């Protein structure tokens, strides 16, 4: 044992050998702290950029600032660090699905820099996605450094993301729930404890560095029964806006794609458009937390029409920023749009039922936020817990649950895949653990192959063949060319059943006469899901595997079931 002892491989330390839970908790805490730092850094750089650019906001040419920021961020991503632009969260989910939690070391900072350029200059995007990918990449690379396996790496990746989200909102439960609900998609004991520890660590870092101030301040609300009823309407309204926003960004992306311009020019154009919008509605710029604060305070001055317009304008600005290639996430914009939507709904309520007492504008702004998070991200629990932590109390829980869950359900009807996962699902790359797709993608043809097949030659007589059959344990016999070993076809038991009891036929029939040359074959590199699809389509129970031109073995549904079951049991076991 001593020979393999290494400080780089903590899995071999006596303390962690039998069970890695303690290892994951300890390293999860470290990763959570690092994720928290990443979030703090991004927050500080946004504040810094905002202050630096403040004097120029009033200039007539100020609308080019977001354009320049977005263009710079694209140039940074494509030329300097050479990464694909993107929102961050989908990349992390993809890594969990397909790469065993692998993320490049550059991802630890690349999205942070790019998004601080986009958002700091005024682009309408959120800092959450970038910190999620940074935190996740930190976790992933720490796991790699300590040569951990994929399961441990995925857990640490989740820890990094949880630490980052907890830190940026100073809301540990929201970070924790977001990671389990959206990033990992799996509520298992093995994940929950390390991710919870990391969330606490991330939030604690934020509190140490910038004091225990909440992104949005605590408020107490008196919720009456009519608010709960009115929530039903708000849920539908939030769902409508969610669908609008999801489709807006996607359509903008398609329109931008059709222009055929270089990426940085597109980003610059989108940014300038956002800048122009910002001249009219300054609240549409940046991540928009400032506007949210005002709305929660109930200090947002404009009337119903303007609030509703602001809601749509924010959707437009976000579509321009993200759809045209700016770097950032959709979390913060959906919070802003949600609070505008809630506020607009409240004002409409008050004007229709002026005699009833409602909980207040701030409350509805918060409910709207939960509705949008539930709708766009398909993450109702994240929405609920985030708002509970922001308001610091339980008074709100009934309307919150209603708005969040109904909005998510209604949105699901129009947009079955959340904004993060739409692309992954379309490419068939969202593989949650323990699902059919995941099990099939993990298995490979080479793992299922059975090699104990008796090979026959085309010039054999039926008598020779019966001799082979009596010695074999299978019903399928591959036919090979005796000269070059090429696979020619298959003889199955079914082919010879009619002649088997006619001894006269024994010397009159040759294998080449009864073999089936038009057989569906499997290549060693084929995916098991494809193989199964072919079997289902043609009603087959087994197929020959042909490597190059040579027969390599058989795959059968019986063996597949055996492996499938083992795989499923191993994958879904977490304690």
């Amino acid at each position, binding site marked *: 044992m001593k020979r393999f002892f290494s400080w780089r491989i903590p899995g071999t330390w006596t303390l962690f050998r039998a069970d890695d839970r303690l290892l994951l908790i300890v390293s999860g805490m470290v990763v959570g702290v690092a994720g928290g730092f990443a979030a703090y850094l991004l927050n500080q750089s946004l504040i810094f950029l905002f202050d630096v650019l403040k004097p120029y906001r009033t200039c007539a040419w100020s609308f080019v600032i977001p354009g320049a920021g977005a263009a710079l961020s694209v140039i940074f991503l494509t030329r300097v660090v050479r990464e694909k632009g993107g929102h961050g969260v989908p990349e992390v989910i993809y890594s969990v699905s397909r790469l*065993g939690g692998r993320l490049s070391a550059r991802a630890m900072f690349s999205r942070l820099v790019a998004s601080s350029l986009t958002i700091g200059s005024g682009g309408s995007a959120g800092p959450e996605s970038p910190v999620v990918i940074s935190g996740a990449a930190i976790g992933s690379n720490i796991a790699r450094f300590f040569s951990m396996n994929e399961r441990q790496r995925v857990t640490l990746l989740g820890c990094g993301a949880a630490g980052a989200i907890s830190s940026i909102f100073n809301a540990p439960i929201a970070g924790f729930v977001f990671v389990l609900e959206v990033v990992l998609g799996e509520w298992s004991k093995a994940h929950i404890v390390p991710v919870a520890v990391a969330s606490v660590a991330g939030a604690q870092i934020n509190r140490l560095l910038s004091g225990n101030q909440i992104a949005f301040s605590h408020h107490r609300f008196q919720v009456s029964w009519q608010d709960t009823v009115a929530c039903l309407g708000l849920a539908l309204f939030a769902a409508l806006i969610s669908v609008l926003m999801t489709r807006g960004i996607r359509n903008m992306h398609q329109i931008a794609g059709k222009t055929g311009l270089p990426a940085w020019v597109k980003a610059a154009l989108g940014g300038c458009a956002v800048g122009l919008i910002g001249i009219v509605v300054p609240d549409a710029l940046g991540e928009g937390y400032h506007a949210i604060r005002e709305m929660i305070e109930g200090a947002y001055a404009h009337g119903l029409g303007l609030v509703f317009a602001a809601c749509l304008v924010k959707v437009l600005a976000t579509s321009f920023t993200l759809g045209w290639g700016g770097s950032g996430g959709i979390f913060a914009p959906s919070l802003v749009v949600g609070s505008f939507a809630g506020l607009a709904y409240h004002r409409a309520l008050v004007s229709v039922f002026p005699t009833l007492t409602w909980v207040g504008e701030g409350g509805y702004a918060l409910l709207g936020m939960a509705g949008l998070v539930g709708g766009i991200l398909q993450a109702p629990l994240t929405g609920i817990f985030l708002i509970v932590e922001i308001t610091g109390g339980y008074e709100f829980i009934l309307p919150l649950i209603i708005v969040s869950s109904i909005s998510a359900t209604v949105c699901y009807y129009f947009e079955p895949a959340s904004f993060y996962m739409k692309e992954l699902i379309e490419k068939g790359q969202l593989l949650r653990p323990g699902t059919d797709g995941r099990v099939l993608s993990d298995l490979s043809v080479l793992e299922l192959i059975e090699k*104990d097949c008796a090979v026959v030659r085309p010039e054999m007589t039926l008598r020779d063949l019966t001799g082979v059959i009596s010695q074999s344990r299978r019903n399928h016999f591959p036919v090979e060319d005796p000269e070059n070993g090429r696979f020619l076809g298959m003889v199955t038991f079914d082919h010879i059943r009619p002649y088997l009891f006619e001894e006269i036929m024994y010397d009159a029939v040759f294998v080449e006469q009864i073999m089936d040359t038009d057989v569906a074959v499997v290549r060693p590199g084929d995916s098991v899901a494809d193989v199964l699809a072919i079997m289902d389509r043609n009603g087959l129970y087994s197929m020959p595997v042909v490597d190059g031109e040579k027969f390599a073995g058989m795959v059968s549904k019986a063996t597949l079931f055996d492996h499938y079951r083992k795989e499923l049991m191993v994958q879904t076991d977490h304690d």
Partner: protein
Amino acid sequence: MKLELEALARCLQLPRDTLERWIRQGRIPVRKTDRLCDFQKDVLDAWARKHHIRFNLAEPQAAGQADADPEKEDAGSLLSALVRGGFHLGLDGQSVEEVLKKAVVLVPALSGSEQDMLFEKLMERERLTSTGIGKGVAIPHPRNPLPGNGREAMITACLLDSPVDFNSIDKKPVTVLFLMVCPSVKSHLFLLSRISFCLRDEAFITLLNSRPTADQFFSAIEALESRLGKG
């Protein structure tokens, strides 16, 4: 403890690729260092039991060999069973009971009481249906293997002096007995299939009716059996 990947895969009866992937994905409590798999036996044992995966450290032999049919070794070949049982000319008797009574005495390595028991069982079997399978051949045998294991399969071949009515399926009187004593049903079926293969050969039937010597008989069996290939 440490084992090579291949060896551990055989112990767990998993494809090598599956084991390698599980280790990489961290689904199995095994660590891989270079080419060696490092694991704690009791931890892996508990894990395997929980997942209904067989884990047997004692058996790191190739999977194909482990699956090989042990019964075939048991039965050996028709020739060896016949050599063990012996070939006898000139058994006389007028009825089934008489010839069987004399035949059991010829079966080697049986004690007196065992001979009586075998005879009882053979008669019991004959009462069920005749073992005369046609072409003048009968294959008397007990329905179930004789108690007292560890004995190898033997077939005692006897050529009768005078044909005996065995109530065969083709009504022909019997001149040849193959008295089969096998340790298991499987070896019995195996040898039976070989005998029936030989009896399909007309030249062999002619040979049996021409009162061959033991050498002639055994070499004919050997030649026929070589056509079937090594079992």
